[in-house]
């Protein structure tokens, strides 16, 4: 499925919760902010979509969103 994980950078405070939830794709940069966010139209399998959804729902800053097409 084609999925886009969106991030509102003004909300993200680098809590790192998404890194634990979606470690398959996301890695921390030197400050602890997520890197490797699947942008526009990335293709994710079911397991990855579940992980991405967990990242979105558990983000303490509500900085993430998931769009599935």
């Amino acid at each position: 499925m084609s999925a886009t994980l969106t991030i509102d950078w003004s909300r993200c405070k680098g809590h790192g919760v998404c890194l634990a939830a979606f470690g398959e794709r996301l890695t921390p940069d030197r400050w602890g902010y997520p890197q490797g966010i699947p942008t526009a139209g990335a293709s994710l399998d079911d397991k990855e979509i579940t992980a991405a959804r967990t990242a979105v729902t558990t983000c303490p800053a509500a900085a993430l969103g998931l769009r599935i097409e």
Partner: protein
Amino acid sequence: MTTATTRNTLPTDHVPGLPGLPVAGLPAAPRPDILRYTEGPLFAGVTRDGDRIDLARHRALWGELPTSDLDGLAGYADAAGLRGAGGAGFPTARKLRSMQGRRVTQVIINGNEGEETSAKDGQLLRHVPHQVLDGAALVAHATGTRRVVVRLAHDRPDVVSAVRQALSERSDRGISWKLSVDEHRFVSGEANAVIRGVSGGDALPHDLGRPPSDPRPRLGKKGSVFLSNVETFARLSLATRGVRPTSALITLSGAVASPGVYEVPTSWTAAQVVARAGLLTDPDLVITGGWHGRWVPWARLAACPLGWDAFEAVGARWGAGVLVVLPPGIPPRQVLTAIANRLAGESAGQCGPCVLGLPALARELARGGSGESVATEIDGRGLCAHPTATVAAVRSALTVLGDAPSSDRTTGRGRA
């Protein structure tokens, strides 16, 4: 041909600084906020710096406001090859066409002109405000919008009063003009920051749910907003009147005798403009497109004609028509560090990779490094284009200075 200038009387040993940027013991120069030369339609009728074309004079020169629907306007913009003159260069015709069938709540003239290397927008508003206002009125009528906002920074009170006076002369049917003055701040000129500022919020970039590089018209909660740069509106007004885009508008600063705004034929080369401003010495390097732009060796730019495509072909960036000639005798690395520091200080302070990344990048540069490992962690991240544009500018400088990292840069791209 008119020369809107006093002759240069500067001694040749005078080394002008960079606008708003102290570097290597050289004090910052002021914004080059003076109209030096005009040979083209934008400043038609202006013979001296300070001449203001009032509404009566404007109508005598250009006639009444033409009428055109959205499609017609887009056609004129297309024929004139109009691109957004605020720096991003998005084709104006496409922007106009994307408004088709949308409810447009307001038209915003973005006159923020946040960077001191640019002065053209303020100069247009000072001298030919009605050409700018006509452009916005055309879009307002074509989109059925009543509300037109002129957004200005408060640091140039004479621009504010020129616009206030121009607005008091207008009596456009069906248009309600509004003047909105912002606390001057670099990123406040960023399009979605302007929209939020005009709507009464903090003039800071905010989340639009799409990349900041996407220049499509901004959608407010209640409808679309048509926002464009001052020069773009003036050019749209001229294009709709059938005037061919024969001139380029440039703000020239740095090591020239007469820094300022120049309207010159597009057939001129960069060397001709700089010669017109009085070369103090043969430059080595020029920064094109402002602090977010591209560094280019003068040897590569000198014979280049003016405009987006020609500049891009030599690795330069047209942007908002900014040329900064680096002063001789100032180590370019120090200029680069000063620019990186300046841009780090201009972060709106909202997004981590920008807040933390840009100062880290500046520190690396000050130490003599390339900062590339930090740069890859800034590139493509953040709410607005500021961090990514800063990285691009730094990389172009390092390439020109022969200090570019040897590693493959493309590996760091595409991160979010």
